[in-house]
């Protein structure tokens, strides 16, 4: 009984850490403009729209976070093997991983922006100086929280994978969940704030991203402020639920029916989310209504 209570406590803590990690990851990637919406940041100068948005999408979020978290976890693991206190080891590992992220962000911004020189896009040194540290701070939160949850899974819940391997698994999952949930909010709602609400961006408007703020030119800190209102928290809850429910079904139900208990609970959870998804889809169709009259012909 005690071990189950302990397991549930660790599961809840890991879920909470994952929520913080997801929110920080999405905000970091939006400030650095690393997800798929970056295609528009790269495209804008080519269409004649010079901007002051950060631009570091050399790799997608999942492989980038796979690298940084595996790095943080690996270094923390090495420090722990040297009998250093786990908390200190995780902080040191995350700190070193964040320096790699900072180098990555700097070189990516310089490289990507310099490649746009022929379209007249300048490299803003003040942007580099003010944005890089903010992405690094958010990345530290994401890396620290994820490495800590990996350590809990390994040390407290007894998962067989060593810490660096858990780091790469959950790093890639973190990037995948964060980019899937947060990217549309940043890409459509923020970069194309001048387009109609409640409709996708027409393909003809590609590249015409919003470049001016309430005062002066918009920069990526403004974008971080905006996406922290919904895209970040939603990504956090998404990743938090993934980690929490995956651990919860294993810790509580794996012993029942020689492993089949966790499988059945997993199927039930999938069905519950399927019903919620269908409800959201139908709710939107009923409340927002169609854009045009129903067409007879199939679209191609």
């Amino acid at each position: 009984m005690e071990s189950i209570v302990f397991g549930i406590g660790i599961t809840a803590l890991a879920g909470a850490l994952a929520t913080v990690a997801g929110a920080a990851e999405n905000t970091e990637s939006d400030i650095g403009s690393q997800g798929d919406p970056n295609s528009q940041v790269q495209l804008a100068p080519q269409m004649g729209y010079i901007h002051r948005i950060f631009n570091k999408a050399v790799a997608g979020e999942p492989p980038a976070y796979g690298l940084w978290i595996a790095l943080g976890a690996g270094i923390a693991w090495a420090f722990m093997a040297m009998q250093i206190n786990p908390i200190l080891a995780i902080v040191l590992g995350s700190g070193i991983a964040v320096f790699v992220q900072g180098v990555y962000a700097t070189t990516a911004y310089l490289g990507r922006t310099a490649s746009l020189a022929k379209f007249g896009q300048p490299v803003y040194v003040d942007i580099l100086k003010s944005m890089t540290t903010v992405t690094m701070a958010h990345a530290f939160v994401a890396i620290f929280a994820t490495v800590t949850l990996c350590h809990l899974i390994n040390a407290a819940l007894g998962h067989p994978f060593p810490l660096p391997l858990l780091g790469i698994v959950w790093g890639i999952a973190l990037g995948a969940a964060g980019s899937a949930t947060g990217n549309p909010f940043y890409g459509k709602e923020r970069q194309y704030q001048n387009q109609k609400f409640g409709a996708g961006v027409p393909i003809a408007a590609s590249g015409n991203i919003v470049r001016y703020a309430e005062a002066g030119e918009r920069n990526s800190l403004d974008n971080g402020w905006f996406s922290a209102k919904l895209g970040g928290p939603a990504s956090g809850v998404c990743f938090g639920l993934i980690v929490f429910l995956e651990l919860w079904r294993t810790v509580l139900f794996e012993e029942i029916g020689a492993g089949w208990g966790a499988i059945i609970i997993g199927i039930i959870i999938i069905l519950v989310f399927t019903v919620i998804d269908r409800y959201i889809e139908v709710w939107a169709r009923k409340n927002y209504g169609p854009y045009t009259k129903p067409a007879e012909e199939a679209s191609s």
Partner: protein
Amino acid sequence: MSAIGAKPAAGAAVDTTAMVVGIIILLLVIGATYYLFGSGLAFMALIGIIIGGVLIGFGVHFVPVGGAPAAMGQAPGIATGVAMLAAGAGLAGLFGGAWAAEMGVVVATITGAIGGGLMMAITCMFVNFIYVFGMGIPSASGKVAKDPITGDTQAEFKSQGTEGHGLPFVSYVGGVIGGLFGGAGGTLIYLMLLDLYEAELPAMMNALPAQIVPIAVTLAGMFAIGMFLVNAVLAAYNITGTIEGPHDPKFKRFPRAVVASAVASAICGIVAIMIVAL
């Protein structure tokens, strides 16, 4: 937006010569394994790895991925890359499957499948959540007139100048199925290698079985993640960019990915087997 407008350079046609060459390479690798190691654990591991790789390569085709256009609500799907999303789901499944390894191959593989499906179910639900409540956009497919599962008409819910947006129900179901296949495939590769390494490493390293468990787990985990990425990326090349799910015409290309995944998994697999069995 060439990702939406451009016709894919490699069409749906199956290149018979390439398929035959692929199958010959596959048979050669299987034959070489049988010749070198007999019909024991190593041979069974190779067969398991090939089945796992095929499950991953096939499963990736179900995952609705919209890439950059989806991030602007210009195309349906999840706004990230094919290989990376599939990897995220499959590795989450591998995590669960590895945890249940001691429960036996069947239970562990199904646990891994459910782990991948769970990750995709939550992620796909949140994609629709953001589209509907964050952006006020309903789901609409650009590839079919009616959702094959629910029968909902799609065309009138596409906003002007886009290919559709969000995840229609069929894409959601496709995402979950993709996660199930990915999680099962990754876990199967891991379990096969783990069994082999746990059997071979003690004699090879002159150590007790209990001592080599961490090494066996780490090696098998690393190879499983690596082979997962190989198969996911291969399938992503077959898809070329974006796919809406099982109802997308691009889905019909999966036989090519199945053969390619089988060949790639066989070659990766024989390398992973040779490090202990030779």
